[in-house]
């Protein structure tokens, strides 16, 4: 036997769609169809209305591994998790799951609205095949984690959607499954709870349990998943290192250029407008993912009706934000060395060169802000996204740098023992300026 926690082999799933899009038919139709077909052979039209939501999907997940699953809407992510949690049968292929599996699929587990929070916890435990007496201590953990103590004896139909989610997540994560499947939980819930969930998922993995999670939030994926599956039209387009997977996914699906003109969520008087944005690496290739510490070139295209624009007349800010929109750092024409004077065309590019991108691995949003003679001309929030992937920033090949170390990287050196004192500046240097000359 293999030691894999999850083994998926050639899994495919076909759905019937057909004219009866609602999925179910009526018995009356069936009878009339049957009556009709007695007279002429029907072409069995329903068979043609099928789609393959999953096609020949194969991968393996080791025990204790966290696997991310990404892909566009309709790529088959949810279907994959549904097949793995045995909610729906595959059409061909098979999967093997080692141990007990619990899942949180889209919003909410199998809660019953009329039952109280407490009863729903027991219901879900029973569904997992747990006896009432086995729950014991876990019950308190669930209640504590979900922070719904006050409402534990209230029917869940009176819960807010956030509370519902909290309880659902707590139940799925605390019933000590061997394999945990999570589908886009982070879509609902406030920022604090999202962080808490991510933390918990990491913790679950550290206990040697296996986690598969679907998300559109690349930060969450890159923070947690060691490997990632990219699904595309039901097929595995990529499987491997998370940062490569995200890089590939972002590259395929985000046209970071020329779409700024289409953006409508912008503010400003429009005297000068932002037109395009792109990043380039040292070899001049357009990239969407950059290694920590690598050189990078940001190119911003603009357009204006003004003639004879002076470079000093405008200010461009490029602000990096984290997933919550908090500012991390800003590159601005105000900070850097002055741009040479001279006329610039009314349709052009500004390029910002960064020698070494000192940001930890994470997906950053880039806000662009352009002002002309003190007035805001154009502001496009989250004009682009940039994936920073972990790389050997400090040149020591040690610990990979991820967001838990913080976003900013500061070049530094450490000294130990006798060298620790030697490396500091001599005391005299510190004291001398404080003394008035000639005292």
């Amino acid at each position, binding site marked *: 036997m293999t030691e894999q926690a999850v083994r998926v082999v050639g899994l495919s799933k076909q759905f019937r769609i057909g004219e009866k899009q609602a999925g179910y038919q*009526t018995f*009356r139709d069936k009878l009339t169809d049957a009556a009709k077909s007695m007279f002429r052979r029907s072409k069995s039209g329903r068979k043609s209305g099928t789609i393959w939501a999953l096609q020949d999907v194969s991968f393996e997940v080791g*025990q204790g591994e966290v696997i991310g699953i990404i892909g566009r809407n309709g790529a088959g992510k949810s279907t994959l998790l549904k097949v793995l949690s045995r*909610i*729906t*049968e595959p059409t061909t292929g098979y*999967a093997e799951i080692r141990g007990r599996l619990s*899942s949180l699929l889209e919003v909410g587990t199998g809660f019953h609205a009329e039952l109280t929070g407490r009863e729903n916890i027991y219901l879900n435990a029973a569904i997992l095949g747990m006896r009432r007496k086995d729950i014991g201590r876990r019950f308190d953990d669930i209640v504590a984690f979900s922070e719904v103590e006050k409402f534990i004896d209230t029917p869940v139909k009176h819960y807010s959607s956030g509370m519902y989610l909290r309880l659902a997540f707590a139940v799925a994560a605390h019933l000590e499954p061997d394999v945990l499947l999570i589908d886009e939980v982070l879509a609902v819930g406030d920022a604090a709870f999202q962080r808490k969930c991510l933390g918990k998922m990491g913790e679950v993995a550290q206990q040697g349990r296996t986690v598969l999670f679907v998300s559109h939030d690349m930060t969450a994926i890159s923070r947690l998943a060691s490997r990632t599956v990219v699904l595309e039209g039901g097929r595995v387009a990529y499987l491997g290192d998370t940062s490569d997977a995200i890089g590939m996914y972002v590259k395929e699906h985000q046209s970071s250029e020329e779409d700024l003109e289409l953006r409508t969520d912008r503010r400003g008087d429009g005297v000068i407008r932002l037109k395009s944005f792109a990043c380039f690496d040292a070899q001049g290739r357009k990239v969407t993912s950059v290694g920590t510490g690598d050189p990078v070139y940001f190119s911003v295209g603009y357009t204006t009706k003004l003639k004879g624009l002076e470079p000093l007349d405008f200010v461009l800010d490029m602000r990096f934000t984290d997933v919550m929109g908090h500012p991390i750092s800003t590159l601005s024409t105000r900070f850097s060395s002055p741009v040479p004077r001279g006329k610039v065309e009314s349709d052009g590019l500004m390029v910002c060169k960064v020698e070494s991108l000192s940001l930890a691995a994470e997906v950053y949003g880039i806000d662009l802000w352009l002002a002309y003679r003190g007035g805001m001309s154009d502001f496009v929030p989250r004009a682009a996204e940039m994936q920073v992937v972990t790389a050997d920033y400090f040149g020591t090949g040690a610990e990979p740098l991820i967001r838990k170390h913080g976003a900013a990287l500061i070049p530094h050196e450490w000294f130990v023992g006798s060298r620790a004192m030697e490396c500091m500046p001599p005391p005299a240097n510190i004291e001398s300026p404080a003394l008035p000359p000639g005292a």
Partner: protein
Amino acid sequence: MNSAQISADIQDLRVQRIEPSKGWVSLRLGELWEYRELLYFLTWRDIKIRYKQTVLGATWAIIQPLLTVVVFSIFFGRLGKIPSDGIPYPIFSFTGLVPWTLFVYGLAQSSNSLVGSQNLIKKVYFPRLTIPIASLFAGIVDFLIALAILVIMMVYYAVTPSMNMVWLPFFFLLTLVTSLGVGFWLSALNVEYRDVRFAVPFLTQFWMYATPIAYPSSMLPEPWRTLYGLNPMAGVVEGFRWSLLGSHTQPGPIILASSGVAVIMMVSGAYYFKRMERNFADVV
């Protein structure tokens, strides 16, 4: 925990194989047994919801059969002068109504049970058979209430039970088997064909007239009476009368026929259900 220990733990874990089921699948009764706690829980849930949501709650379980008996006694007993095997007509018809109420409850609840539990079905795995079973089991509370009323009536009409009474559990079981059989078929059909549920009230009504509740099956001559047993509820109702009221109607053949049909219906229903089960989550 060292890594060797962890890998030993992994080895201990059971491997679930997920694959398409082919043809007529096995019923996996062992799995159903493993999930007995869930069955208990779902039953309890259905009971709780039933008594919480209806304003009258438990009184409903008393009023409904009692009113039916009053109507039956007036129209069939008094005016229609329908024979009742020498038993006072009210108690004669009520004894038939006791298992019938359970059957109808099971029919109505289980046919819609899968669609009603779709948020569970779409989100978690468990043996789906537990759902129609649980919705029938929830009706046992109503059944027990009705049975208690019957006992009071027996005291009132001074009907002394005979030794036939030891057979009562068997007839109770027969009621369950019959109800499950119909419930499995209807619940699975209702997922696929949503208009099945509209047919249920009609089916219930028709079935009621085809069952010897308001009249005795002894009105029919043999062999027609035994043939009548092909309606499994006929055997159930006659069985209840025989065991509780000690009616001397020799219901043996009719009960035998009914038992056979009930078992066939339940087993075929369970297989049909299992066969349809794989698509439930896709279509509900």
